[in-house]
């Protein structure tokens, strides 16, 4: 039995405010293809008396934590966080999928969930003239993140960002091999203990290095630093101002510090990453960067901004397949992008890059459309 105390659970998470209107489930991208029904789960918790059994609720692992449910709820109930909390209860009992276990263990041992060696983390920047933050200090800490440090496409984005910021004269440094996973995915997978330990470790390090301002490549890292670190005791010492890199670039463009001498003459459509858009309301800045690039013709998909369709890369879903691996939302998304006639599908998230890249390959659409990060496009126009 995987029992939770449902009354306490519901009370602590404000679930009693729920009027069962179904607005969460109506827009849930996973409800389109799996048994996940956020409204029904809340209802079951509400009517369960004082014990709700999580056994057999595999659909809890379908949630991508895209936050569509929370962003739409008229009663400000957060089904996504309720689901993450239910995952925690499962993880606490040790009843977790082997893949999840491996990712969590790797995060603990290697500082990344990818099972890759810690000493390779800084390799991407070996031939670049980037300051080592720990040695020289800098105005900004460039927090690179796991995927951009190790994944080939992610590395390209990190390198593009370095060239953009250098051309704009921004003073920044990186941590190299000392950088540690931000633990956003650890939290979404429900491993509260590991999350708290990692937060404490990172917060201490940033404090020691006197990090005042930082920016990230991934909206997931950005979100966890901005919204989660300071809300738990372990992150009490974390006080840096965090920005997503698209915010930095938009500001630099406005101030005239970032200038494009070249151009990128292509039709581009932009996919809003959930952790940038729905989670943090950052819709305009990436578009300001794209439209500021000479030659870019920005076309919007019908589902844009608040209605952006999740690519299924978040919420730990890079490591858990979910209950219906057949239809991938990323493929649906690429089809929507193709319908606009765009030659480039731009985004600003390393997870989105991976899932959309794979979908393009699966649909044999490599000739028609390329998936590029906003930073990559911008760097091409320098």
């Amino acid at each position, binding site marked *: 039995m995987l029992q939770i105390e449902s009354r306490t659970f519901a009370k602590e998470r404000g679930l009693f*405010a729920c*009027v*069962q*209107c*179904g*607005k*969460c*489930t*109506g*827009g*849930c991208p996973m*409800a*389109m293809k799996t048994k996940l*029904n956020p*409204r*029904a789960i809340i209802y079951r918790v509400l009517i369960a008396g004082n014990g709700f059994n999580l056994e057999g609720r595999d659909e809890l692992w379908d949630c991508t934590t895209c936050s*569509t449910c929370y962003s*739409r*709820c*008229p*009663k*400000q109930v957060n089904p996504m966080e309720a689901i993450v909390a239910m995952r925690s209860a499962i993880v606490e009992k040790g009843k977790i999928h082997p893949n999840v276990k491996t990712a969590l263990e790797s995060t603990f041992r290697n500082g990344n969930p990818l099972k890759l060696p810690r000493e390779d983390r800084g390799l991407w920047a070996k031939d670049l003239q980037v300051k080592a933050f720990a040695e020289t200090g800098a105005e900004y800490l460039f927090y690179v993140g796991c995927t951009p440090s190790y994944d080939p496409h992610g590395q390209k984005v990190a390198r593009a960002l370095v060239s953009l910021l250098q051309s704009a004269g921004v003073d920044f440094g990186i941590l190299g091999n000392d950088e540690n996973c931000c633990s956003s995915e650890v939290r979404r997978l429900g491993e509260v203990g590991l999350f708290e330990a990692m937060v404490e470790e990172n917060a201490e390090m940033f404090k020691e290095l006197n990090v005042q301002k930082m920016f990230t490549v991934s909206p997931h890292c950005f979100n966890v630093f901005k919204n989660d670190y300071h809300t738990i005791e372990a992150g009490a010492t974390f006080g840096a101002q965090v920005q997503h890199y698209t915010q930095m670039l938009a500001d630099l463009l406005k101030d005239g510090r970032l200038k494009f001498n070249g151009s990128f003459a292509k039709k581009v459509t932009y996919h809003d990453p959930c952790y940038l858009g729905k989670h943090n309301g950052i819709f305009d800045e990436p578009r300001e960067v794209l439209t500021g690039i000479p030659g870019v013709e920005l076309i919007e998909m*019908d*589902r844009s*901004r*608040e*209605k952006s369709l999740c690519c299924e890369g978040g919420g730990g879903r890079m490591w858990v397949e979910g209950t219906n691996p057949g239809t991938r939302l990323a493929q649906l998304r690429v089809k929507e992008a193709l319908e606009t006639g765009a030659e480039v599908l731009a985004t600003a998230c390393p997870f989105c890059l991976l899932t959309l890249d794979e979908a393009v390959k699966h649909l044999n659409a490599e000739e028609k459309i390329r998936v590029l990060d906003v930073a990559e496009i911008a760097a091409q126009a320098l």
Partner: protein
Amino acid sequence: MSELDSRANGRHAALVIGAGIAGIQAALDIADAGFKVYLVEKSPSIGGRMSQLDKTFPTLDCSSCILTPKMADVPRNPNITLLTCTQVKNVEGQAGDFHVTLEREPRYVDEKLCTGCGLCTDACPVSVPNLFNAGLDSHKAIYRVFPQAVPPAFVIEKKPSPCKITCPAHIPVQGYVALIAQGKFREAYQRVLDAGVPFVGTLGRVCYHPCETECKRADWDEAVSICALKRFAYDAGTLHAPPKPAPVHYAERVAVIGAGPAGLTAAYNLTLRGYKVTVFDALPAPGGMLAAGIPEYRLPRDVLKDEIETITALGVELKMNTPIGRDGGPSLEDLRRDYQAVFMAIGAHGSSRLDVPNEDVQGVFQAVPFLRHLNMGHEAKIGKRVAVIGGGNSAIDAARCALRLGSEVQLVYRRSRVEMPAAAWEVASAEEEGVKLTFLSAPTKVIEKDRRVIGIECIRMELGEPDSSGRRRPVPIPGSEYILDVDTVIAAIGQNVESAGLGVETKRDRVIVDPLTLETSVKGVFAGGDAVIGPGSVVEAIGAGIQAAESIHRYLRGMDLREGRTKDTPKAKDIEVVPTSPVKRAPRERMQELSIAERLNGFIEVELGLTQEQAIAEAQRCLACAVCSECNQCVTACLRGAIIHDDKPKRMDVDVDAILVATGFDVFDPHRKPELGYGKYPQVITSLEFERLASASGPTAGKISLNGHPPKKITFIQCVGSRDRSLNLPNCSRVCCMAVAKQAHLAHDRLPDAEITVFYMDVRAFGKGFEEFYDRVREEGVIYRRGNPSEIIRRGDKVVVRAEDTLIGEQVEVESDLVVLAVGMSPRADASNVSETLNLVRGADGFFAEAHPKLRTVESNVPGIFLAGCSQGPKDIPDTVAHAKAAASAAMILLNRN
């Protein structure tokens, strides 16, 4: 104020704020009981939201049919004083003794004279979205809210006009631009004349157009090419036929000194007002600097001649070759004896000296006399290599003229390009034509041989600290002297006013005046233009001419010279423009120009003007941000003379015993729920828009259709902008369930084959006959599905409502041709102003709070102030009327007791 005599001749009085159904009912009840009522309404008509509704639930009687008779009762009731376009500005005192200050916004149409015939609206060139029809169609800038409006008078919508405010002569730019857009070129030309500006073709060529700098269109792409359009209005609109002499109404005669733009403009305006005006000028030809200073390639002489002929044909007398106060001409005293007022507009025709050795040798010229000489048709003998000293417009004019006389020209300016006072486009043309520019250099000595120029010694400068003009002061670099090999020097370093001996007070050389009235130190003598401000622009001079004519008329008629002349208009920079429809980007139309070779071959006009197609396209780029363009077509059309374009706000004070607040509600703006795609998908509309679509008096005459097609699938969504904590609108809007049921019924009634779905969270059918009506609608076949839709997306030419049907626990998609959002009732956007003025407390839902939730629902927290209708919270019509009657009754207790 007599029409609003205090305390209504000793009777007890109430003030009712807001004239929707609640305010109307309360006012009628109190008036019928014999008390005085001031019924104050912000908008131009009474009727409120109810006048926008089609049928009312659950009885399905027609909203207008039951409302209109009540509206008509208001003006007929002798106890009611109706004040539309009026707001409460201040309230003092207490129950039984309130002193209220009201402010009436101008309607710009005389309510008493207007018969509501609509000729004005037909003539008006400006259209704006019709908010009464929820933006589904448009109305003109002069309009009536709806046909049954009370009072029936039309109203003009005006906003501040950045171009007109910026123009020194306050020309109603949007007026002639709107007329050009309609192909009414003659009317456009006439409109500028009617603004007191006789120099249309001239300004259209030489104006430095500060209006374009402030044009809000530039926020989207580029400013409207206003100056070129004014030129077009003259080129295409003038008949070149001089007008008939203006009739003389007054015995007083006016003398104007100076036949430049300021003097002639004043003469033009005073003559039109009925004065006999004589203009004196020292030069042989009229026009002042227009004739003597501006070269022909910028202003062809036939244009100037034509415009001056228009002025003289009216009866303005010109006395040329007649200097005042010097060279044997009459003195100012002579003029004051023979004329009852004098306008002094002598310009700035003097020149500043270079103050360098040998500046009096042969070959050194001053720009002003040089240009005058040339412009008066004389031959100018200059050398092959010319240095022009200076960076203003005269320097550029002199340089470009010298170029046309076949010389090589070098312009020497002591500061850098950015500090040049000349217009940037003039500098660019000069460069294009071949003038060489040397910056940061100043002459130190003219080099002569046999008293003829053989060169000029200059010194290099650098820029130091900013001086009093805000520009950086040039400082010589010691030892950097060099020699320019030239045979002619034209100095254009400054102009001054030849004011000595005139007998008015001056500061340095400029005539001192009162900036508002242009009065000088001598009674009856006014001054303006360059004589007052130093070398300025043509449009400033014209502005001064208009201002002087107004002052002189008031002076001669014994009127107050200052009253009503200080305008508290906003600064153009502070005006925010929200376009009524999306702005389609389009670059401005550009004039053709002569080739460089053609230009240098004489003094032919360089710019060729816009073509007719270009002018119309350019005029259509105007955003009409002022709404009413002041084109005056309504004035011409109105047979009753009811249009008052310069109508002003009025303050009024009333004393009352009780106040009723019936300010109603706003409807929720669904742009705040972006997932529903309102504003993005034309298929998604609000319930208020649906009312107008369904209404027989609406834009489709009651046909429910979208782009001409009847929808086959209609989906209603309840609770949009109500019961929503995330929007801070936590309350139930109370009427939407039944309003949706009624609208679903109407849709079924008009389109029996349509599939109609209603998405609901709960159906609240609590009132008399409500549940029965809900039953009826379901039995008609309307599908009720439980679930609050999460999003609307596009699929082909349809939209798809995505929701969970919570009763089957599945995600569903409902394809729809039309989606109606049942928008909630929200507190008025300006509720905080009302609450501040009246000291009213608001509840957590933002509506005004009643004194007790059970026992005192019509009393506010302030004794003597009562709440009626939806100002207190969402209500349907029967509840609103009942609440209003209760409030009226509570107020009457107070009125009767006092």
